[in-house]
């Protein structure tokens, strides 16, 4: 685990854009296509997104889980995979994205005040 978390993450614009989506609400869970839709400053391709998610998971910044099978089945489709920032990710992502920590702290608090639970 420490070996994984210790791996350095190369700074690229698409990775920053993906992390910005997570930073909008650091406690939210999002799935792949949702990220593509929410990155509006560039045309993020599906083929670029998943290697980024893999690297962020490897770095210990993101964690993921499968959607509950029953829920997906009730919608008549296979389960999706949801991603979420880890503590390390939430702490490291702002400076990686060049966002001041004040800005994200206030968003974080708003996220909690709005009743986000995990």
């Amino acid at each position, binding site marked *: 685990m420490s070996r994984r978390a210790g*791996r350095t993450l190369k700074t690229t614009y698409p990775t920053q854009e993906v992390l910005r989506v997570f930073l909008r609400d650091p406690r939210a869970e999002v799935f792949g*296509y949702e990220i593509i839709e929410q990155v509006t400053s560039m045309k993020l391709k*599906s*083929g670029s997104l998943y290697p980024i998610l893999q690297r962020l*998971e490897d770095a210990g910044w993101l964690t993921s889980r499968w959607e509950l099978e029953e829920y997906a089945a009730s919608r008549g489709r296979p389960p*999706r*995979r949801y991603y979420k920032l880890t503590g390390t990710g939430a702490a490291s992502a702002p400076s990686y994205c060049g966002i001041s920590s004040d800005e994200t702290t206030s968003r974080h608090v708003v996220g909690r005040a709005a009743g986000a639970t995990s």
Partner: protein
Amino acid sequence: MTDTAAILAATQRHGSLAADRAYRAIDLACAVHHGEHRQNGDPYIVHPLAVASIVAELGADPDTIAAALLHDVVDDADYPLDKIRAEFGDTVAQILHEFVQLNSATLDLNDADRHINELSRFARRAVTVKLADRLHNMQTISGLTEDKQHLKARETCQVLAPVARAVGLGEIAVELDALSADTLRRPRSARPAPVVRPWTSEAGLRHARTLLHLGARLLMPQSSRDRWLAEWDGEINALSDGHERFRFTLGLVIGLPRMAAAAHRSALARNVTEDRP
């Protein structure tokens, strides 16, 4: 669907390097033809896949199969031959060089014998690609206007079928003759109007999805392949818009080599087998 499987199976027989190269050729063709479609509405990539599958069926070697996959990448899209040489080797570049030459001749049907002689003298592998190209074009000719259908059918029976016979590809000659006779026999008024299907047809999505699965099987590490395929299937199935589904899937296909590199690095670092909960 079967095209891709036939291509990969035929090249796999020559070892995994050959299969990997076929996959890279498919990948490049996907990238170069991305967003293009044929006159009958199919995504363009359907055509090189079909042509490669025809040459694979004829028992062609992996170089010819790769050249078939890339024939319009070089001829129509002007992808530089030097880059083909660097990425796929001298032989593939040489076949494509000859293909472009033999394909550039405008056929004068009053001088069919001369054309038959000229074309038959090109290297067999380039001629094979050309004949397979024409065969698939004849199989999908309904996308063309009536006049063009007629012209192509006459070229086919007067020049290309005889060339096929001259180079010993009799079975292709028979098919070319039958297809062109079919087109020429139909009275113009009775010929059905071309059916224009949207380029996001079910066939397109099926092709892209098959490519994704076969590509993942070739390139992704076993430990995480199923997880990613399951995740992608989940996303694809949840998309309601056909166009968006196709784009999403094709994007994954094009991104597969990079994805595979990331997944291999991850598997190496983690050294565990499966992380699906």
